């Protein structure tokens, strides 16, 4: 039987959207898929050496529940969503939301992004960074982890054209 293959394009650079590509890629690798992720535009943030740049913003994100990761059950079930106009003027609101989400993630036994990224690397998931957006955003290769390949759309298709699963995230 031929090895199954999966390709993912990761385009989002926030803490919440960092999860789908790394979860799917690490799981696919565990299932025996040969897996590649092509990181482009904001997705490049997922390759940074310092992953503390990843934040989550409740601003303009009506689907995001704002719940506290501590306290009794009734307290944790309260939804603290507030109007965009108010969120926008509170300094550090995004940092607080990010800290709360990281706490919730840890409380639920969900892996951190650095951990999932490492698991992908251990499982030999291939990471490709889009060279065009690296330049567009003024990044240097030294901003990113080692072991990356740099390429463009044609590089992506070389592998993606032969995959069983191909996702845009």
């Amino acid at each position, binding site marked *: 039987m031929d090895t199954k293959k999966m390709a993912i394009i990761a385009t989002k650079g926030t803490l919440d959207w960092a999860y789908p590509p790394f*979860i799917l890629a*690490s*799981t696919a690798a*565990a*299932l*025996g898929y040969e897996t590649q992720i092509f990181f482009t535009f904001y997705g490049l943030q997922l390759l940074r050496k310092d992953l503390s740049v990843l934040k989550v913003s409740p601003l303009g994100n009506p689907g995001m529940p704002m719940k506290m990761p501590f306290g009794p059950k009734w307290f944790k079930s309260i939804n603290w969503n507030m109007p965009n106009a108010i969120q926008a003027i509170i300094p550090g609101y995004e940092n607080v939301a990010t800290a709360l989400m990281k706490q919730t993630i840890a409380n*639920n*036994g*969900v*892996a951190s992004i650095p951990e999932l990224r490492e*698991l992908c690397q251990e*499982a030999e998931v291939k990471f490709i960074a889009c060279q065009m957006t690296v330049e567009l955003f003024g990044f240097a290769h030294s901003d990113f982890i080692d072991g990356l390949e740099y390429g463009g759309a044609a590089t992506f298709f070389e592998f993606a054209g032969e995959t069983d699963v191909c996702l845009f995230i």
Partner: protein
Amino acid sequence: MNFDKELDARGLNCPLPILRAKKALGEVTSGQVLKILSTDPGSVKDFAAFAKQTGNELLSTAEAGGEFTFFMKKK
């Protein structure tokens, strides 16, 4: 049931139980049995799907008090 290795994945959530199981299966030989403990309700379907796709045999699945026990035989 007899087993050769035990994996405690309690308290871990998707996809960690699967990833840890994959790693643990790499540390036993063909025909040996891995016992897995989990508290993630999603792992019931996930381990069945994992077994089906990887060819490792899921010998049994049991639940007691919110805890799941799986026995998986390595291909």
